[in-house]
């Protein structure tokens, strides 16, 4: 009898625990850790906390919903401080995509300001570079596949494919975390993309970027992985927040409240 009650209690506890922090819809949880990114703080390991990430990039149809709710992001209403002229050029009106665009393709031609506000309006945020790269270094079976030649070769093959922004989401297999399309579909905005201190004039306007492009890090970059990652960092370094690009979309992440965060 007592044993029965105890096991019932245990059962209730177990059920309750999973209910305490229910995973958000369309997101998967990512278990944080320390890792060595291409460009870390002091070129050393960075710590990533537990968080949740969208399984797919935001699609055109999700963006249509957003824009109907928040008209200030419609292309005729958006202010020039927050988006350049290319913003949503592939839309035929404020709320409609051109007929050639697929609802299930990733939304592109969006500025950082728009992407940031989209996520915030869903109670989420953009991922940091460190978070994005952390999830993106996984392949189907391992968290850190960067040492595997086939992982790198696959990414580079995807990078070579043209006009991938016209594809639909979910065509690439999910990775270890259950996240799709980090590579091979579109580039993605990150919250702190402007922390990549490389630009045409980096020797002039930045006080010390020798731990970025010019210095030792670049010289040490020997394998293909670094080449793919270099491309991503170089693109981030070349962006401005109001730019809208054909092959640049985004996805959101969400913090896991501290009491459920087990990594630190």
């Amino acid at each position, binding site marked *: 009898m007592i044993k029965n009650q105890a096991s019932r209690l245990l059962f209730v506890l177990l059920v309750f625990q999973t209910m305490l922090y229910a995973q958000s819809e369309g997101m998967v949880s990512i278990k944080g850790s320390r890792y060595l990114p291409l460009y870390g703080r002091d070129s050393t390991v960075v710590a990533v906390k537990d968080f949740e990430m969208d399984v797919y990039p935001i699609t055109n149809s999700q963006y249509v919903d957003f824009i109907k*709710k928040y008209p200030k992001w419609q292309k005729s*209403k958006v*202010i020039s401080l927050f988006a350049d002229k290319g913003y949503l050029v592939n839309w035929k009106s404020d709320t409609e995509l051109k007929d050639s665009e697929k609802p299930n393709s990733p939304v592109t031609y969006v500025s950082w300001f728009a992407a940031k506000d989209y996520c915030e309006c869903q109670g989420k945020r953009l991922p940091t570079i460190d978070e994005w790269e952390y999830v993106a270094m996984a392949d189907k079976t391992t968290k850190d596949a960067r040492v595997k030649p086939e992982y790198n070769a696959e990414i580079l093959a995807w990078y070579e494919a043209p006009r991938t922004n016209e594809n639909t989401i979910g065509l690439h297999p999910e990775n270890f975390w259950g996240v799709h399309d980090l590579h091979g579909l579109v580039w993605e905005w990150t919250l702190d993309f402007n922390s990549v201190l490389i630009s045409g*004039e980096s020797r002039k306007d930045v006080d010390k970027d020798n731990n970025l492009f010019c210095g030792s890090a670049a010289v040490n970059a020997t394998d293909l992985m670094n080449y793919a990652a270099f491309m991503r960092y170089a693109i981030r370094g070349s962006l401005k927040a109001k730019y809208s690009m054909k092959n640049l979309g985004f996805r959101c992440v969400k913090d896991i409240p501290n009491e459920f965060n087990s990594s630190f």
Partner: protein
Amino acid sequence: MKHLKIIFSVLIMTIAFTACNSKTSKNTSEALAVYQCPMQCEGDKMYRVAGSCPVCNMDLKPVEKASKVLETNEISEASIFNLTSKWHTEEGEEIQLKDLKGKTLVMVMIYTSCKAACPRLVADMRNIEAEIPKENLKDLNFVLISIDPETDTPERLKAFAIENLMDDEQWTFLQGTESGVREFANVLAMKYKQISPIDFSHSNIISVFNTKGELIHQQEGLGVNNKDTVDTILELTQ
């Protein structure tokens, strides 16, 4: 049950609107009376005749004429006064950037524990100030924004101001939130990265804004010739 649902969804909508839909007040046709849904169900959509909103069925309200008077004062699209982030000054006041309206702004982003470039950037700011005639200073505001809001509290900024003899009227120091700072840096196309708990790498940019908050001039680099910057400021404060 059904009523509850409706009430609930209306509630959600109000919350959603107040939370994120910072009102976009754009110029609209002035001559005729225009009507708009009070809930802005269709955004800024205007109607020429009174009636009810096709989405929520509420009566359309005439759009107030008052906005017309405001128009001369209106913030342009490219103005930094569109940003709604909140900041604390070195005096502990809470402000938004639009509270700085009316003066020519010379802005730079620094952090006070910086040992390398910031002292020189701050010196550059002081050099610029020194070249401006006294009578122009009243129309000017030199604003130093911290990229390290965690360390640079209003108290610390005040101490820094006193220490560097930058505590006069024309100097303002701002502490923001992490996301507010990141957003503002992006407006200036300024890059920065925390490289250790006390150190940042960052671009060295001094930006000049006119009284409406529109970016007029940027000076990049350390110890560069500030003639263009000074000329721009003199032109703006004439």
